């Protein structure tokens, strides 16, 4: 709609509604400096022989091991042995339940190293609960008070930002 009554010009119907699409289409036309074809090639008969290779791989992946009676026997025997060991182990060590502290630091580091969480340290910090968490939980050797004060003195310009609450 033409808002200015003095303006004699008109636009085709729906012009502004489709303008953005037309503009983006035009903007996204590649320049002629780019090569037209992809230079990537495949070996001869690659696609013709692909199905056969895939079938072989799939058969290996989904191969089911048939259960035979003696294996069932072994399975039952192993289950009984495992239950016996667990029961005896529980009696022997009933005062020593496994906890987080029993994990080796190297195991924890390896876990974080080998599992891709796709989170930055800042994102991890945002999702970790910090209530009742002390910095000493994350550090193997405790920070000395004077070193901490020196760091804060050099790096913090506004002490109010620290939101220190007097707990005493």
């Amino acid at each position, binding site marked *: 709609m033409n808002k200015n009554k003095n303006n004699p010009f008109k636009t085709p119907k729906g012009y502004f509604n489709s303008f953005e699409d037309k503009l983006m289409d035009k903007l996204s036309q590649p*320049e002629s400096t780019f090569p037209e074809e992809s230079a*990537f090639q495949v070996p001869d008969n690659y696609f013709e022989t692909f199905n056969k290779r895939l079938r072989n791989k799939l058969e290996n992946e989904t191969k089911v091991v048939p259960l035979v009676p003696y294996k069932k026997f072994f399975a039952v025997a192993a289950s009984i042995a495992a239950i016996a060991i667990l029961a005896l182990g529980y009696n022997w060590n009933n005062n020593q339940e496994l906890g987080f502290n029993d994990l080796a630091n190297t195991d924890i580091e390896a876990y974080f190293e080998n599992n891709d969480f796709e989170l930055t340290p800042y994102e991890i910090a945002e999702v970790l609960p910090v209530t009742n968490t002390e910095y000493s939980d994350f550090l193997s050797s405790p920070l000395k008070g004077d070193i901490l004060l020196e760091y804060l003195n050099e790096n913090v310009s506004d002490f109010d930002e620290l939101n220190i609450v007097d707990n005493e």
Partner: protein
Amino acid sequence: MIEEETLVIDLQTKSRQAQAFEVLVNTYKERLYWQIRSIVLNHDDADDVLQNTFIKVYKNIDGFKGDSKLFSWMYRIATNEALNFIKQRAKTQGVSDTDYQDKLVANLEADVYFEGDEIQLQLQKAIATLPEKQKLVFNMKYFQELKYEEISEILDTSVGGLKASYHLAVKKLEQYLKED
């Protein structure tokens, strides 16, 4: 070509599964291959990832609910498999994803299955500098000539957003090629 809906039903029916899977592989292997190859660049790696993609499709077809098109679903699996492959390889070699991708492009010069001239090689070097999303959009639009609507469903991004990404990618590539 067999209707997608019929194909999905056949894939989920044990007695017809093997034959339907053959049809599925024949229908999509080339398109998925080129999507994967545009990410991993090397043929042998693309072959590995393509096989793993179809194995994943085969194992998960019962869980396919038809919320998206079968084609988009498989493209998404292929794309994720290829991106994960790159990340795993980079981690194994102890380098960043970017460094690993630079290495892949550098290897193209000696790749017998890359028959590009200097401009093709420069274009691949330029594409390697793009952020992941722009790289995907550019490859899918420019080399594979997918429609924006198709890319939109695969990458779960609006058509407008894709056009903007493509435009930005083209501008960056032009800039790279002019400067180089």
